[in-house]
């Protein structure tokens, strides 16, 4: 039975994507519940799979019973199980939040929206579980196409951002595809495991070297690795809040998964870091991205745009860990996948709550009336921000910690300096916001709210409603839990998937 989990994960999402319009035709809200239920089921499956794989080892599933050399193989190993769990759990939390937000931000488009969300999640989880390098391309394009569509469903400028994203994303996918062609000619197989076995014999082949370079270039665009990040800020800013909360924590990270899978599993860490300069290149570009993204974030006036640039910086952390190509660095990168997914979805959800309650997320207009109007969302924002800055014991500190250890292990002092500087830059742009929401005295009109004696409900409905508040609080708590349990997460799950 267990082996079916592997294929059930993407299939459940795919089924939900198909059923959503059908149910939506029957009752408007039904589309939502179908996708939410599917996400819940997959979340349970992936968590079970994560646990199962950690104990029993990888689970393989051959599609249609064809042997892996001919057919397509799906694999749930510690790495893919981990990504599946992150995707489905975060998606579930964000979708709980989306119930009230979607009708407000995308009136009349809920049914296609949820259907596309199902498709996006099918694509994302498909990328992770497939063991076939061409199949990965197909799922990558499924998820990308859904992302284009989701981005386009935003404010007035969203379609232009989506178009730019589409052009760059498709170019990236095409590069990936050419790279796959080169590897296919040399190895004669598309199965990642088989390819991994065949490759050590032909590592000096220029076709292999070129093929890997093209694959990394393609994935680099999808991952928004600096300087290939051009599509990202507009796309994340102009899209509707529930989409940005869904795409931002996962979209780019899935491409990072592709890089990890191909560079370290199909090829080897030794190859990409010692024989070829690819890992170093990734590390340096990531470091540049961290600094660039953070500096750009400081200059932003719009909260979602700030978060988008911060995403460029944060994907740099993951890229840096990959580029270090040593166990601690990779653990840092993988841990940051989880941590950043928690933080970024939390922050985007707060941005959504802001838009719902005060109608904008313009930083320059935020003021201290918010601490009365929406104390819990602001509390969540503060926790998320502290974690982004890397204050212990929040989760964000520990990814920095492992990355710093990895960089020191490698003697790469520049990267340690980059991490330190980045944390300070994060502090600059997040405290700028925090200062506004807690300390900037509100305009005279809102003074009434400052009345200390006004009845205040401790939790709740006075703010934005439970369905929008609970996810924020759950994620805020999760940031602490992930922080305290990081050693357990690393030892139980991550250690097993580091191929070094």
């Amino acid at each position, binding site marked *: 039975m267990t082996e079916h989990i592997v294929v059930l994960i993407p299939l459940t999402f795919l089924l939900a994507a198909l059923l959503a319009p059908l149910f939506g035709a029957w009752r408007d809200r039904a589309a939502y519940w179908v996708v939410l239920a599917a996400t819940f089921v997959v979340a349970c499956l992936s968590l079970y799979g994560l646990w199962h794989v950690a104990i029993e080892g990888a689970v393989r599933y051959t599609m249609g019973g064809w042997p892996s050399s001919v057919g397509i193989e799906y694999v749930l190993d510690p790495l893919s199980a981990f990504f599946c769990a992150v995707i489905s759990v975060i998606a579930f939390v964000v979708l709980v939040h989306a119930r009230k937000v979607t009708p407000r931000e995308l009136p009349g488009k809920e049914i296609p929206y949820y259907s596309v969300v199902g498709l996006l999640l099918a694509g994302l989880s498909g990328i992770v579980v497939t063991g076939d390098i061409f199949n990965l391309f197909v799922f990558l394009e499924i998820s990308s196409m859904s992302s284009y569509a989701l981005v386009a469903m935003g404010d007035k400028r969203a379609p232009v951002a989506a178009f730019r994203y589409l052009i760059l994303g498709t170019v990236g996918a095409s590069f990936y595809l050419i790279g796959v062609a080169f590897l296919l000619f040399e190895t004669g197989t598309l199965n990642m495991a088989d390819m991994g076995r065949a490759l050590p014999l032909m590592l000096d082949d220029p076709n292999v070297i070129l093929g890997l370079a093209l694959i990394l270039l393609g994935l680099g665009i999808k991952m928004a690795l600096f300087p290939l990040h051009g599509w990202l800020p507009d796309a994340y800013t102009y899209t509707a809040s529930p989409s940005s909360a869904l795409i931002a924590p996962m979209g780019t990270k899935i491409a990072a998964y592709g890089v990890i899978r191909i560079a370290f599993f199909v090829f080897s860490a030794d190859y990409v870091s010692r024989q070829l300069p690819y890992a170093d290149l990734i590390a340096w570009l990531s470091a540049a991205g961290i600094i660039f993204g953070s500096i750009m974030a400081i200059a932003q006036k719009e909260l979602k745009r700030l978060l988008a640039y911060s995403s460029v910086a944060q994907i740099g952390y993951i890229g840096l860990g990959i580029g270090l190509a040593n166990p601690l660095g990779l653990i840092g990168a993988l841990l940051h996948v989880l941590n950043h997914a928690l933080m970024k979805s939390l922050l985007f959800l707060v941005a959504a709550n802001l838009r719902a309650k005060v109608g904008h997320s313009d930083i320059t207009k935020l003021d201290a009336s918010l601490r009365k109007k929406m104390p819990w969302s602001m509390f969540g924002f503060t926790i998320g921000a*502290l974690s982004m800055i890397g204050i*212990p*014991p929040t989760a964000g500190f520990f990814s920095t910690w*492992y990355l710093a250890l990895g960089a*020191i292990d490698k003697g790469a002092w520049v990267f340690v300096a980059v991490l330190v500087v980045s944390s*300070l830059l994060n502090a600059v742009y997040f405290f700028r916001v925090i200062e506004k929401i807690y300390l900037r005295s509100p305009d005279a009109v809102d003074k009434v709210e400052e009345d200390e004696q006004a009845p205040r409900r401790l939790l709740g409905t006075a703010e934005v409603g439970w369905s929008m508040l609970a996810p924020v609080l759950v994620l805020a708590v999760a940031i602490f839990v992930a922080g*305290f349990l990081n*050693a357990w997460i690393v030892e139980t799950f991550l250690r097993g998937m580091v191929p070094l």
Partner: protein
Amino acid sequence: MTTYTTIVPLLAVLVSLAAVPLILLSDRKPNLREFWTIAAGVVKFALVISLVPQVAAGNQPTFSLLDISPGLELALRVDPLGLVFGLIASGLWIFTSFYTIGYMRGNNEKKQTRFFASFAVCLSATIGIAFSANLLTFLIFFEILTIATYPLVIHKESKEAIAGGRKYLVYTLTAGNLLIAATAWTYSLAGGLDFVPGGLLTGVTMSPTSAAILFLLFLGGVGVKAGIMPIHSWLPTAMVAPTPVSALLHAVAVVKSGVFGVIRVVGFIFGPQTMANFGLNEILIVVAGTTILLASLLALSHTNLKRRLAYSTVSQLSYIVLGAALLTPAGFTGSVFHIVSHATLKITLFFCAGAIYVHMHKEDIRELNGIGTQMPWTMGAFTVAAMGLAGVPPLDGFLSKFYLGLGTLEGGHTAALIVLLTSGVLNIAYFFPIIYRAFFRPYEGKKEYGEATPFMVVPLVSTATLSLLFGIYPNLFFGFYDLAVTVSRSIMGI
């Protein structure tokens, strides 16, 4: 030295944290809210005291919570040094709590709930710092303290306070990051992060350059909170915070965790041997000596009472740093004991400054003419504490300075001795005018004020009395002197 497991250290850390939700929930009932603060303070102090007999007997209560990073535990261990700091911080919190009630109500401050809640978090972090068994645990509590102090610094929410808060964050967050880098580096060098008396890095091979860089990273990390120059300037700026904050945090908890960190780094991470081998103590002596003198001179140039006290704090903190840098038994003893004496003395001085501010609304030294006739108890305590800081016997300040002086002779650092003596003169120079004005100039105001509320006067008189008692009986109640000697012996390995 034997270690045994007990949950008491953890409880001591958590008790004030547990009070936070209670304080927040009793937002509308000030008396209940303050009751929680004081209850937490008393329980905390009792828990810390309960550890004294064991530690005095040479045992070390430990508690490991969980692995926070593979191979690194989030662990608490109460050694003599930690106990000294823990006792001081938790003991003085009780005094401060009473004082705060008087101050906040007398001054009609807003957002008192937030204030008390942040204060409680700060205390948790401080005790956590005191009892940390390893550098990573220390680092975690150190950063929590940084963040928890921020709401207190910006409490007034004025432009000035916000600017002060910004400056505070820039300095302390930078420091925190340097400390993270230093910690990670130490981990990769030594393979562990436990505080080892005599030095974790003893026997680890390092090049002189990397030793110096690592030391400077550490110094940047803990030195900001310790107020060493040239990275001290957040401290005077942070004096925009309400006086109880200045009193407890900027005289006891926050800055003391900085100097405590310096002692930890010097005595427990590098160790006297490594320090001396690489000549790192020379760096520290020069930095500390310069800070002592410059800060004393700067104190002279300020007429705002709190600012003068702030610079005096900067100067006095470096006594502790200097003591550690001497790498001699008497130096460490004096250094640890000065944590105690400076805490009791400086908190008294800040309490007095706050009492004058709340009661008379005066902040500038030039306005204090004849105030001693109006507030005899307050100014009496002030005089006692000022004398103590200048090193007049039989106050506890004399004792610590005596040992520091002894340490300079042991180490053969004549220049350091001269610095100490000069600074003693400067101390008198910047405190004497205040006392003179207060008692010997005629009072110019019309209204008879009398003393401030007992909530404020009782704590400040008590702390002044404490400094007198500790000066005469240094082992009174808790055996601070013996603990200081034990610390010094364990570090020096004698």
